[in-house]
């Protein structure tokens, strides 16, 4: 009786330990992803360090860097949840305060973006603009686009990752 009891106890303790280890490993992976995301936010000084609409990477937030015509900026419009990535075509910068009125337009569009701005809004200001595009990585954005359009793929990926972690500990 005592021997069987001992055996059961030892098996249970190994299983519990393994389970805990696996849970912690999974947790570590999720938190490292979060850490990388937050670190990117810190380094770029922007709330959305990676915008995938055009697969373009973003530069440090330009609280100090002036906005000039020709730059491609990422901006938010009140009432729209997806930011827009277009080029600046007009800039009027005020003398003392450095406040700026900006008009944007997509390169291929016929009209400027006033149709996209909020009702009655004619210009973009600093606080609408979240970042500036500095480079181009082709096709990288497709991963996020696919995951947004077919969310099931997101769940499959996370499930597969989870499975891999658990399997590797065995």
């Amino acid at each position, binding site marked *: 009786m005592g021997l069987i009891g001992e055996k059961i106890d030892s098996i249970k303790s190994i299983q519990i330990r393994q389970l805990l280890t696996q849970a912690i490993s999974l947790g570590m992976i999720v938190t490292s992803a979060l850490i990388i995301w937050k670190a990117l936010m810190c380094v770029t000084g922007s709330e959305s360090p990676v915008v995938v609409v055009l697969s373009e990477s973003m530069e440090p937030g330009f609280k100090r860097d002036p906005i*000039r*015509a*020709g*730059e*491609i900026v990422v901006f938010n419009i009140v009432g729209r949840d997806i930011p827009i990535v277009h*080029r600046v*075509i*007009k*800039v*009027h*910068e*005020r*003398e003392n305060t450095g406040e700026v*009125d900006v008009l944007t337009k997509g*390169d*291929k569009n016929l009209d*400027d973006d006033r149709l996209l701005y909020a009702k009655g809004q004619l210009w973009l200001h600093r606080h609408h603009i979240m970042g500036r*595009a*500095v*480079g*181009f*990585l*082709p096709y990288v954005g497709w991963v996020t686009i696919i995951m947004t359009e077919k969310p099931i793929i997101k769940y499959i990926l996370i499930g597969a990752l989870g499975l*891999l972690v658990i*399997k590797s500990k065995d």
Partner: protein
Amino acid sequence: MHSFGYRANALLTFALTILAFMCAIASFSDNFSNQTPSAQIQILNINWFQEEPHGNDEVSLTLNITADLQSLFTWNTKQVFAFVAAEYKTSKNSLNQVSLWDAIIPEKEHAKFWIQISNKYPFIDKGHNLRGKDFNLTLHWHVMPKTGKMLADKIVMSGYRLPDAYR
């Protein structure tokens, strides 16, 4: 250690690292190209100059733009976006930039051009400051690479002036 999963993972990581490295050196190679763009802009005519419905000054110009941007194209260039902006200072605004015309140049062959047009986008001030205003016409170009860092530069041409009265 030698299961399919581990091997696939190692292969994929290696492939992605090599790809990232190739993108970086492709972009870096753009620094070595010798770029000698040139441009000239003439204002042929002031078509009209008046206040638009919101009360701001608006002027319509006919421009003659000649440019040779062929040396900007490298093997890593996807397209060059060129635009002409009128740039000037007013008492309230330290800098005003208004894009008058732009074009997407997809290939080197199209990068040497001569064009005579009236301004594609309206030249409207924020206010009534344009009478007798001295301004620069700047040809900007933004080179979009196939991969990597975008590069931008400009040629500033000064000495343009708007008439003292509406017409």
